[in-house]
C-alpha cells in the first residue's frame, strides 16, 4: 500500500498554511512534502536578497503571486552603510518577469529600485496589483508614472519613506482615465506639489480607495475638498496641518473629517497647530492608529487629543508628549499595543521637555495590552526597567534608546544590567530587543541565559569584553539578526561561534575590535557565509592584525555576490589588486 498521503490531499491541507515559517518547517519533512509545499506557496518572503539567487526562487515556487524582499542591513537606516553598497532589485525583477509573469505583488525594503525596474514591472506582469516600497531609493516619479499608467489592475501603490527623484506632480495624472481599482495610495515621501484638480479627479474615480497618504505639500485648505471625495477612507495621512484657515474653512474641514465614518488610522499631521486639534475630535473615538511623529504640537494640547482616543492600539509620537501626556495615555488608551516615542531634537535643556523613564513606567502600568515599544529617552534607571518588566511580561518588542552613550542609572550610577535582566527574565516572549546605556558583560550573560525566543538584538556602546558576544551567540537559540556598533568585541567569540552564524540571517558589527585576519579565517572556515568588510578608506597594506571598520556577515546559498562596490572587500577579491572576479562556484 502506498503509505504516502495523496498529493491532492496534501496540497489541500497545505493551502491552509499562511505563515511562511510553518511552510518552511513543513517543506523540510521529506521530499514529497517539499515538492507539495513549493507548488502551493503563493507568498514568498526573502529576508536577505543576497541569501539566495532570484533564479532559484523563481523556479522553486511556480504559483508565486507575491514577493517580499529585503536588501540593505538595518543599520543603513542610520547612515552606517555607504551608498552603492548593493541591494539592487533589478536581478529579481528581471528573473520574475521572465519566469513568473503572473506575479501580482512586489514588496521591497531597503533596496535600490531604478526607473528601469519600475518600467519592467509595468511591462511584464499583466495582473500586477500591489507595489509597496519601504526605505527604497534610486527611482524617480517617471517610474511611478509608468506603473500608474500601465498596471490597469493596480490596487496598492505605497512609497513609504523612500528617497525619490521627484520630477513633479504629473505622475498622478497617469492613472487610468476611467475608474481605477486603487485601494491604497501613499505618496507621503514625495516633495513636490501635485495639482489639486488632478488629485480630486483621481479620488472621484477611485471608489475602492481605503487608504490615502498625502505628502506635506498638500495644504490644509484643500483637505476638506479631498475628503469629501473619499468618505470611505479607513486610513488617512494628511498633508501639512499648519496653514492658515479662516473660520468657515475650519468648519468645513471639521465637517469633512466627521464624515469619515470608517476612519481608523490617522497620520501626516505635519506641524499640527494647537488651534486645529478640535478639528480632529470627531475621528478620535474611532481611531486605532495615530501617528503624531511629525506633529510638533506640545503639551498640554496633546492631552486634548489623546484623552479622546479610547480605542487607540498604535501610537507614534514625539517626546513632546512628556511624562504627563503618557500618563494620560495610560489612563485613556486601554487598548494600546504599540508605542513609539521619537526624539524631537528639541534642545532639552532649553525647552523643558520632560520625558523621563517615568513616562514609560506609567504606560506599562496602565496599558495591559502593550507589547511593542520604541522609546527614546535621555537617561534611565534600573528601578524603572524592573517596574516595566513586572508590569508588562507580555512584551514582544522592547527597544530602548538611552540617548547618552554609556549613561548609567542616573540615580545609582550603576550599569543598567539589572534592569535589562528583569526585562529578559520576565518577558518570555520577547522577539526583538534593543539595549542601550551603560552595560557590562553581565547584561549579555543575562540575555544569553533568558532571552530564548529572541530573534533580533541591537547593541550600541556596550560591554566590557569579547565575552559578551560569546554569551549572546551561545545562549540565544533563536537569534536571527544581530547588529552591534561600538563594542569591544573581537575575534575569539566570533571564530568560536562560527557555526552559529549559519543559523542566523545576518550579523553586523561596526567599530568593534574584529581583525582582518579573523575575517579571512571566518570566510575560509565557513563557505556558506558571505563575510563582507566595508572600508571606505582602505589602508595600503592590510596586515591580519589590523582592525576592520565594519563587517556584515550573512548566510547564503548563492555564493559570493558579484555586485560588490570598491569599498566592500570579500575573500574572493584579491586584496592587493583591489577588485577581482574570482568565481569559486
Amino acid at each position, binding site marked *: 500500500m502506498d503509505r504516502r498521503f495523496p498529493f491532492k490531499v496534501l496540497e489541500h491541507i497545505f493551502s491552509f498554511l499562511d505563515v511562511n515559517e510553518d511552510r518552511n518547517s513543513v517543506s523540510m519533512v521529506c521530499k514529497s512534502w517539499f515538492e507539495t509545499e513549493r507548488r502551493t506557496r503563493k507568498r514568498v518572503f526573502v529576508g536577505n536578497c543576497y541569501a539566495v539567487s532570484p533564479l532559484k526562487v523563481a523556479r522553486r515556487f511556480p504559483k508565486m503571486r507575491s514577493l517580499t524582499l529585503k536588501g540593505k542591513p538595518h543599520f543603513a*537606516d542610520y547612515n552606517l552603510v555607504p551608498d552603492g553598497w548593493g541591494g539592487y532589485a533589478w536581478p529579481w525583477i528581471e528573473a520574475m518577469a521572465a519566469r513568473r509573469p503572473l506575479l501580482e505583488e512586489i514588496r521591497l525594503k531597503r533596496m535600490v529600485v531604478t526607473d528601469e525596474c519600475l518600467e519592467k514591472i509595468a511591462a511584464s506582469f499583466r495582473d500586477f496589483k500591489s507595489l509597496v516600497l519601504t526605505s527604497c531609493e534610486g527611482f524617480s516619479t517617471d517610474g511611478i508614472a509608468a506603473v500608474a499608467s500601465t498596471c490597469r489592475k493596480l490596487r496598492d501603490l505605497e512609497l513609504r519613506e523612500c528617497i525619490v527623484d521627484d520630477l513633479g506632480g504629473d505622475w498622478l495624472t497617469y492613472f487610468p482615465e476611467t475608474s481605477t481599482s486603487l485601494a491604497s495610495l501613499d505618496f507621503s515621501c514625495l516633495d513636490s506639489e501635485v495639482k489639486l484638480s488632478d488629485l480630486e479627479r483621481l479620488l472621484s474615480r477611485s471608489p475602492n480607495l481605503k487608504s490615502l497618504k498625502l505628502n506635506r505639500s498638500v495644504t490644509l485648505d484643500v483637505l476638506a475638498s479631498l475628503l469629501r471625495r473619499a468618505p470611505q477612507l479607513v486610513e488617512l495621512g494628511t498633508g501639512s496641518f499648519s496653514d492658515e484657515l479662516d473660520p468657515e474653512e475650519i468648519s468645513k474641514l471639521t465637517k469633512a473629517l466627521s464624515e469619515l465614518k470608517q476612519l481608523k488610522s490617522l497620520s501626516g499631521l505635519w506641524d499640527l497647530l494647537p488651534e486645529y486639534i478640535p478639528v480632529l475630535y470627531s475621528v478620535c473615538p474611532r481611531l486605532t492608529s495615530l501617528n503624531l511623529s511629525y506633529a510638533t504640537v506640545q503639551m498640554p494640547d496633546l492631552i486634548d487629543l489623546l484623552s479622546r482616543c479610547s480605542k487607540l492600539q498604535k501610537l507614534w509620537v514625539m517626546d513632546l508628549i512628556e511624562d504627563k501626556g503618557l500618563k494620560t495615555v495610560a489612563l485613556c488608551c486601554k487598548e494600546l499595543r504599540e508605542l513609539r516615542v521619537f526624539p524631537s531634537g528639541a534642545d532639552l535643556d532649553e525647552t523643558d521637555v520632560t520625558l523621563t523613564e517615568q513616562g514609560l513606567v506609567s504606560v506599562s502600568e496602565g496599558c495591559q495590552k502593550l507589547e511593542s515599544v520604541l522609546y527614546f529617552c535621555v537617561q534611565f534607571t534600573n528601578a524603572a526597567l524592573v517596574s516595566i518588566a513586572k508590569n508588562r511580561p507580555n512584551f514582544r518588542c522592547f527597544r530602548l534608546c538611552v540617548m547618552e552613550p554609556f549613561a548609567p542609572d542616573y540615580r545609582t550610577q550603576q550599569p543598567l544590567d539589572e534592569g535589562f535582566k528583569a526585562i529578559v527574565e520576565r518577558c518570555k516572549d520577547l522577539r526583538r530587543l534593543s539595549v542601550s546605556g551603560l552595560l557590562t558583560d553581565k547584561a549579555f550573560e543575562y540575555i544569553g541565559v533568558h532571552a530564548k525566543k529572541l530573534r533580533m538584538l541591537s547593541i550600541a556602546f556596550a560591554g566590557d569584553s569579547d565575552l559578551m558576544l560569546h554569551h549572546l551567540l551561545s545562549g540565544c537559540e533563536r537569534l536571527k539578526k544581530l547588529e552591534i556598533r561600538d563594542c569591544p568585541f573581537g575575534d575569539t567569540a566570533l571564530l568560536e561561534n562560527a557555526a552559529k552564524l549559519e543559523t542566523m540571517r545576518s550579523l553586523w558589527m561596526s567599530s568593534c575590535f574584529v581583525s582582518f585576519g579573523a575575517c579571512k579565517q571566518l570566510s575560509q572556515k565557513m563557505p556558506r557565509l558571505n563575510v563582507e568588510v566595508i572600508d571606505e578608506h582602505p589602508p595600503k597594506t592590510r596586515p591580519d592584525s589590523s582592525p576592520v571598520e565594519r563587517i556584515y556577515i550573512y548566510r547564503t546559498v548563492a555564493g559570493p555576490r558579484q555586485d560588490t562596490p570598491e569599498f566592500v572587500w570579500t575573500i574572493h577579491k584579491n586584496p592587493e589588486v583591489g577588485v577581482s572576479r574570482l568565481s569559486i562556484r
Partner: protein
Amino acid sequence: MTYEKVNELNLKDTELRLGLPGTEQAKEEQEVSCVRSNKRQLQSDNEEESTPPTKTQIVGWPPVRSYRKNNNSVSYVKVSMDGAPYLRKIDLKTYKNYPELLKALENMFKFTIGEYSEREGYKGSGVIPTYEDKDGDWMLVGDVPWDMFSSSCKRLRIMKGSDALALDSAL
C-alpha cells in the same frame, strides 16, 4: 538654506552660527563613529554650560532614520510680550517668512502690528517685535533675511507701551 548675495559678498561667509545637528554646518564638524575613549568623560561631565558647545557628532546616533530627522527639525523660541502674564513658545521652522511669523504673533497675543519699513522700523501701532540673537544683542525683527533671522533668533520680545513709544519717537 540659501543666503542672499549682498554687494557680491556671500553672507554665509560672515555668518557665525552654532547649528543644530542635521543642519549644514554639522557636517563639517568632527564626526566620530567610535566614542570608546570618551566613555568615562561623558559620565563625569555634569557642568551646566550657558551656551551649548558644538557636540562631536557621532555617526548614526541617536538611531533615528535620516528621513525622519530631516522632516522633523524643531526650533522653539520663547516669545514674551510686554504686559502679558506668561510667555509662549513657537517653532520658527513652521514659518517661511516674516509676514507669516508676524501674523502668527498677532493672533497669539491679540495685537496688530504697524507697517515695517527698513528706514523707520514698525510705525503706527506702538508695538515693536524684537529678538535676541546668538550674540545676545536685541535686534529689530525684519532687518535681516528670513533664513538668517530664523537660524540666529534665540528668543522674541514684543515691546509695547512706554518702551515702544520711546523707541518709536527716537527712530
